[in-house]
């Protein structure tokens, strides 16, 4: 899923300064699963903003609404009747949400209420870790199912580097060295010799280096 973090309330309050009617817009997709932008968080943020407004003696109109997804136009369409009623729309979806809302409703003032941080998974309830960097060319099967692009601080294809110590990365003892894990895993699987292969420079054209990405599926397009 796409994992995000709530923006500090001070930052959000500064964004919506002077805007009377505010809508907090949640998303039932990834951000609901990582507990940062779903219906519950819409309620919490809207309530906190109303408290701030009441405290400052300002009009407390802060409503909440949660869309099925904010990354599909048909759900963004549900806003059509209400978008014009608000002076600010705070989207607490991933970075796609505020952009889709702003594209569909060009007159609306749209603000991001969360910071989109990474593509990852839950290690346990309340703990998430990065697992994918969407490089556009998945190779994890060569490394025992562990991704050296997303999980090595230097995205090394031929590791580990000299900074690997006691199984941890030199950037922090809290960060495991994924190359240490790869070697251990491959050894356990009896596939250590596969790591003798020297990988050439990775072609980053499939990643962000090739510019913004777009996919067209002719079989699905209507």
């Amino acid at each position, binding site marked *: 899923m796409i994992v995000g973090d709530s923006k500090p*309330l001070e930052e959000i309050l500064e964004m919506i300064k002077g805007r009377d009617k505010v809508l907090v817009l949640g998303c039932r997709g990834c951000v609901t699963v990582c507990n940062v932008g779903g219906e519950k968080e819409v309620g*919490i943020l809207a*309530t906190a903003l109303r408290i701030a407004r009441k405290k400052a003696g300002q009009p407390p109109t802060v409503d909440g609404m949660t869309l099925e997804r904010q990354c599909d136009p048909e759900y963004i369409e549900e806003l059509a009747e209400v978008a014009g009623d608000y002076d600010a729309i705070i989207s607490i979806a991933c970075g796609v949400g505020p952009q889709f809302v702003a594209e569909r409703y060009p007159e609306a003032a749209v603000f991001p209420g969360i910071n989109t941080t990474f593509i990852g998974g839950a290690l346990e309830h309340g703990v998430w870790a990065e697992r994918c960097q969407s490089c556009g060319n998945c190779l994890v099967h060569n490394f025992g199912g562990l991704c050296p692009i997303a999980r090595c601080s230097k995205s090394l294809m031929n590791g580990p580097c000299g900074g690997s110590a006691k199984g941890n990365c030199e950037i922090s003892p809290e960060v495991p060295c994924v190359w240490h894990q790869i070697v251990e895993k491959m050894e356990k699987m009896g596939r250590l010799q596969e790591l003798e292969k020297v990988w050439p420079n990775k072609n980053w054209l499939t990643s962000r280096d090739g510019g913004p990405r777009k996919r067209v599926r002719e079989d699905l397009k209507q």
Partner: protein
Amino acid sequence: MRLQYPASVRVIQLPCSGRVDILHLLKAFEEGADGVYVAGCMEGDCHFLTGNFKARRKVNYVKKVLEQLGMEPERIEMYNMSSAEGPRFAQVAREFTQRIQELGPSPVKAAQAA
């Protein structure tokens, strides 16, 4: 036992302190409560094992929200007491009421009254 505690304390019963939600706590402040405290069972004595620990974490979350809103985090607190400790319940009610009286009315209520 007929113990006295301040009439300003409004008791809201929950099946377990773990049932309390961040939204419940924030709503109370939105509606103008000067202070909110959660009275849970003694740590280690939760019938549902971790309800009171969860309540404490939610209280701590709301403390941070209040701080970000420029309100005193002391306006919300978590207390642990056994259901057999009537005198402690009354004592905590008095202590917390005293604390809130020292902090004064909630700025939410004050701004609305103005």
